[in-house]
């Protein structure tokens, strides 16, 4: 995408044409070269990967002191709202730490990391890696299999992160005997956010909601007693249904049923039962425009009192907080998704380093920073997620995040999220989304969706 650096002002037509021709020649060389020898591509693994921002100037052990030779290029998808605020805070803190380093942080925008992932995949496939990129760890790394750097010795062991990070996060950052990622923050998935005024009006005691059936009763009560739509749901994409279904499945049939499902031993009866409940919700209790709105619009409906509740990852907290007249414990409140008390449904954002790295030393310094206390606090407060280090003082976090952080360190079970890359490979996740996309966006076909879901994980 943004591969040119706008340093040269006197770009005349001739230079431009020359650059084009050279680029085109390089392109065709890349095309034809691919079929040649495989050794060629592996040999270029050290330093001068084609088109990287650095040339042959490998750093020769000058990691001490502040002398950096290469540019640190980091791609991330936090292009707006709370994500942008968070990554800006992170970058500022980093530049304070390493003022001498030449850095290039690129936000590759658009929703749900679509462009980011496509850009990363394209550049890695073209053997043109960046220093680091933001992505989910866990099974999601399968996407970049064979092109990841091992940070275990240089970052994890050097900084003692294995002792200071949550053990689950450490496990999720391991991939094929390497540790290519450092976690930056965790969102909790099993949430139910609600508008307190609406719950009061409908006469519902949120703390009594302890099962999916109780939730369905409450939604019915809201529907009967108020003019407000009981639940906001965003169905412009299928992932919201997938994650809500995972919550319902866990709530109804327990963490074990969910774990069995993601591990490839699905219990079809449990899958169907959860789909039935989701169908009831989607057919009766959500806003009519669900099919054309995104989760941010859905969140706005809770803020404006048009919808009573919403299930989402706690990134909507970042959104709620941006509205000064909509405050935690006052206008909105939170309960764990009914029937999932004591469980922290696990989501992790991380910074991943590709192999054949164009700026080895800089990348290591950056990844060390990402795991530091300073970085984790700077990033997570604005983001609405919580640090994965176990030694953070909760008072450094906002009230809601401090509460979430305590749950993060002290829950009974931590099932990994299915809709956000941790639990299953990208291919399986895609198949699960397709299961919902094809059969469950209205009309809601329970049997066909169940078949597709079971087939997706059983493959």
């Amino acid at each position, binding site marked *: 995408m943004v591969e040119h650096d706008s340093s040269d002002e006197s770009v005349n037509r001739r230079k431009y044409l020359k650059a084009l021709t050279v680029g*085109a020649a390089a392109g065709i060389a890349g095309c034809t070269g691919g*079929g040649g020898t495989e050794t060629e591509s592996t040999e270029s693994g050290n330093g001068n990967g084609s088109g990287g921002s650095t040339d042959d100037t490998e750093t020769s052990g000058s990691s001490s002191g502040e002398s950096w030779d290469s540019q640190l290029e980091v791609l991330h998808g936090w292009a707006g709202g709370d994500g942008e605020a968070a990554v800006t805070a992170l970058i500022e803190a980093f530049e304070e730490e390493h003022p001498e380093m030449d850095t290039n942080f690129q936000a590759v925008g658009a929703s*749900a990391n679509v462009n980011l*992932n*496509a850009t990363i*995949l394209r550049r890695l496939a073209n053997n043109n890696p960046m220093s680091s990129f933001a992505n989910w760890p866990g099974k999601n790394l399968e996407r970049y299999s064979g092109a990841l750097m091992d940070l275990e010795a240089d970052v994890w062991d050097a900084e003692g992160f294995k002792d200071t990070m949550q053990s689950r996060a450490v496990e999720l950052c391991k991939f094929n005997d390497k540790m290519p990622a450092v976690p930056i923050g965790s969102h909790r998935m099993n949430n139910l956010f609600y508008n307190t005024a609406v719950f009061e009006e409908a006469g519902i005691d949120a703390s009594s909601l302890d099962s999916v059936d109780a939730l369905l009763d409450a939604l019915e009560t809201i529907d009967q007693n108020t003019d407000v739509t009981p639940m906001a749901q965003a169905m*412009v994409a299928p992932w919201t249904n997938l994650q809500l279904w995972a919550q319902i499945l866990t709530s109804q049939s327990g963490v074990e049923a969910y774990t069995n499902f993601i591990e490839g031993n699905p219990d079809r009866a449990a899958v169907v039962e959860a789909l039935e409940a989701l169908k009831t919700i989607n057919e009766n209790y959500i*806003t009519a*425009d669900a099919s054309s709105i995104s989760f941010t619009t859905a969140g706005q409906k809770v803020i404006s009192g048009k919808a009573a509740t919403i299930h989402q990852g706690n990134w909507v907290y970042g959104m709620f907080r941006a509205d000064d007249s909509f405050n935690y414990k006052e206008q909105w409140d939170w309960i764990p998704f009914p029937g999932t008390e004591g469980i922290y449904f696990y989501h992790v954002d991380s910074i991943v380093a590709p192999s054949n790295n164009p700026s080895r030393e800089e990348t290591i310094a950056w990844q060390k920073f990402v795991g530091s206390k300073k970085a984790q606090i700077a990033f997570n407060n604005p983001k609405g997620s919580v640090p994965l280090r176990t030694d953070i003082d909760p008072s450094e976090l906002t009230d809601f995040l401090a509460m979430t952080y305590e749950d993060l360190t002290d829950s009974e079970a931590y099932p990994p999220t299915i809709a956000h890359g941790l639990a299953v490979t990208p291919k399986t996740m895609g198949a699960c989304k397709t299961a919902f996309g094809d059969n469950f966006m*209205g009309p809601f076909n329970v049997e066909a969706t169940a078949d597709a879901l079971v087939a997706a994980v059983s493959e």
Partner: protein
Amino acid sequence: MATHDNTEHVSDATDEAVGWESKLRYFLNSDFVRSAPYWGIPFVLMSIAVYGGTGYNFAISFTDYEGLGTPDYSTLDLEMYAQALSSDAFIAAAQNNLVLLVGFTTICLVLGLFLAILLDHGIRFSEKFQTVYLLPMSLSFVVTAQLWLWMFNVESGILNLVVTTLGFNPVDWLGNPSIALGAVILALIWQFSGYTMVVYLAGLQSIPDDQFEAARVDGASITRTYLRIIVPQLKEASVSAAVVLMVFALKAFTFLYALVGRYRPPNGTDILATLMVRRAFKFGEWAYSAAIATMLLIMALGVIGPYLYYQYKQGGL
């Protein structure tokens, strides 16, 4: 270019009637070589960027290239094509593509012709109407997609305001898979019918007024005049407009992508282009996507080919 380097050899060249130097000089001075920088560079760029890309795509589609790494050309087969043709998702996308192609093009042409005839009758403010109709064409797909996303909203969209005012139930434009494709076609027609109108209008205005007068003198009704005399003369305009529209229909990807901001368009509107990009850039299935791309190219050639042949027959090429 390069004509100033052999001035010393002029005398030598006269000794032998046609020495190799002068041959070279003639050659370098020929129109072919002197014009080379002007057509050569675009030609080279085109061959690399377009035909090179197409060729590489073609080559990949026979491999099993997937994920990161390099394609393996040792075993080439049609497996990816077979896999695509037997997949439900591909068939559904191809069908949607076909519906989009035929439905969108036909309605656009008919509507454009209708508008052009109205404007050709010299109604008041016709230039202004012309601008109004053409305006959507100048907007980017990204803008129109967002605009229509709002208009399609079930609760607050203007379309449903109209529908409910007329006494019908609100329509879930994008959420209902049997309507969604129609909704997308509607939006595309809104954007492109202005273009067909302009093409037809130009055609209509080039027809001499005598023909209308002659028809009127002969007592032909207006409908009859248009059906028998005018419309047949618009064949050229129709064909060229249809080709442009069809090509747009094949690459409606931009609109669908801008509509939802991701590679998976609303249920029931998946076309080959979205399927291809999704498989390639979400899952790294390069070979499979390349096979889809090749078939998409064949479909596009199927549209363009007859047009080029037609032009050739007419002596236009």
